[in-house]
């Protein structure tokens, strides 16, 4: 590296990214930040009561699910630098574990979710152990094809419904056992918010822990990290396990929310790409990036769909694709970096 890592030229995409990643480590929150955080918390709790139309709540529930999944990807790719393009596998495992066990054996989806997390973590280990030797594009494409293998296997595995998928029976009598809420979407909202908050706390802990430092060392300078005695493979495995667990929880929650799952909805490549795009849009390797990304992208795609009508003309995806392209080219640090540049003066931070 000819360039000093601390002073990349301004305006370069890499510099943008570095700036976006330059999260303060171990700095206590200032009083002002606590106030903002408390306000945000109150706003999120009050939100579904102010905007109480089912559709408005629905959008937020989906945002929470996507944000959780994006946060899972962010841990693995944003903090640890392992670019996975197959996150749908863990999402699908979470969704199928909860949905299939409930539909066929009447096992509570809460337990099914735990089973899903367990299986996802094991699958993540099985994927990570051999593929973490691969670098760059080889790793990314390996995860991409693993995602497609998973998709194909689920399409052809008749035991779990094959291409038809799983239809989760409706249960109105015991909402908490069946993890289905038919009266209104409030429980879904608060459960989604709760899981997302828990995931964010894990990321906050990561940012401040030794493991988090090792993650970033592995991301930025893998060879240096190894030579300084960081057990690179072990920490990569920790990252992929956390990532898989978050994603599986999101999948289980999704299954119990929409009640119909099939390989096309929970195992597609587009889902794996979507979480990448969301995180990139918000700001990769930052706590808030995935949340901002999901919070902007999902409502945006809904809005364009409502707006331009469901004509099957794919106008919403066109805008979406163009947006992703423009953001990647012009603001690779994501919206967070952009906001920070607009609102935080350098001396102020």
């Amino acid at each position, binding site marked *: 590296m000819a360039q000093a890592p601390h002073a990349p030229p301004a305006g370069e995409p890499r510099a943008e990214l570095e700036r976006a990643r330059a999260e303060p480590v171990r700095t206590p929150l200032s009083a002002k930040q606590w106030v903002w955080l408390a306000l945000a918390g109150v706003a999120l709790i009050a939100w579904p009561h102010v905007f109480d139309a089912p559709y408005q709540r629905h959008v937020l529930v989906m945002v929470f699910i996507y944000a959780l999944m994006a946060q899972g990807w962010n841990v693995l790719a944003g903090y640890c630098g392992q*670019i996975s393009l197959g996150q749908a596998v863990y999402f699908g495992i979470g969704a199928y574990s909860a949905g299939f066990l409930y539909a066929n054996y009447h096992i509570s989806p809460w337990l099914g979710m735990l089973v899903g997390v367990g299986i996802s973590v094991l699958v993540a280990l099985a994927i990570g152990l051999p593929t973490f030797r691969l670098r760059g594009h080889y790793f990314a*494409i390996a995860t991409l*094809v693993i995602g*497609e*293998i998973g998709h194909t296997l689920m399409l052809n595995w008749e035991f779990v419904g094959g291409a038809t998928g799983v239809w989760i029976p409706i249960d109105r009598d015991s909402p908490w056992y069946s993890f289905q809420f038919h009266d209104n979407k409030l429980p879904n909202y608060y459960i989604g918010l709760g899981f997302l908050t828990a995931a964010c706390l894990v990321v906050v802990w990561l940012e401040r822990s030794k493991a988090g430092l090792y993650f970033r060392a592995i991301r930025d300078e893998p060879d240096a990290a190894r030579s300084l005695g960081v057990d690179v493979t072990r920490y990569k495995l920790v990252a992929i396990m956390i990532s898989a667990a978050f994603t599986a929880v999101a999948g289980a929650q999704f299954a119990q929310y929409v009640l119909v799952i099939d390989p096309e909805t929970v195992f597609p490549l587009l889902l794996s790409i979507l979480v990448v*795009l969301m995180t990139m849009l918000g700001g990769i390797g930052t706590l808030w990036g995935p949340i901002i990304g999901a919070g902007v992208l999902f409502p945006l795609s809904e809005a364009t769909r409502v707006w331009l009508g469901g004509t*099957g003309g794919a106008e919403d995806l*066109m805008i979406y*694709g163009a947006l992703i392209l423009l953001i*990647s080219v012009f603001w690779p640090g994501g919206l967070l970096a952009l906001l920070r540049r607009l609102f935080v003066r350098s001396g102020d931070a």
Partner: protein
Amino acid sequence: MAPGATLTTEIVIQTIVSGLLMGFIYALVAAGLSLIFGLMEIVNFAHGEFMMVSMYSVFGLYLAFGLDPLVSAPLCVMFLFALGVATHYGIIRHILNAPMLVQITATFGLAIFLRSLAQFLWTPDYQSIPDPIVSGRLDLAGIFIGVPQLVASAGCLLAFGVLYLFINRTETGMALQATAQDREAASLMGIRTDRMYALGWGIGAACVAVAGVMLTNYYYIFPEVGFIFALIAYVAVALGGFGSIVGALFAGVLIGLVEALGGLLLDPAYKYAIIFAMYLAIVIVRPKGLFGRF
């Protein structure tokens, strides 16, 4: 073994022939991808969509002027060359030094855009060119070969040969190689590297266009048609080693054969899964692919 079929010599030969014919198409698609990667270490995730665009441009010229794919082929290949060059100047030039992830999302964004644009313009329906000039089939001692398939493979192999000679025998080709090896040294030698990159993108898109145009004689045209070809090309390029054109040829043919034989011996539903599993097995043993130089 697929149920109900018996494995005769004819069926095996037939399968190998079909696999080879498909393999040459995969090889050319992969060669375009590999060329771009070799030049600038960017994986073009919109590669399949370039192919899709080339197929729709054939279809559009057929609808507008009744042109046969054979006639519109040169126009469409040139159009894709221009699209590749434009992609370089409009998008890629800005993200040359960006992290890999930014390059991935930028080209994915382009892919999503092109795919939905096609859906917007032509609906998601499957289209095909009725009664192309190239049609019919040959009967070689009980082995049937579709003429469109044969022409497509021959066309791809020919294009591959031209590409190989261009890269290795012409001055511009040498300049491309020099740029791939060392951008700074090349530019010190007076090579305009930015132009070389644009040329690389043009050629890469033209390669995939040749494959796409040839496919329109017997394949359906729909917005997601490029997806599986691109996926296979990524596997082929990674198998052959990123940046290796000859590697892409071997990997493309290998994939064609494995796909055909795997579909015959196991289950056609798993034929792509088998290719992907083969990719995993090979890169885990050889993390830089079969012919990798990076």
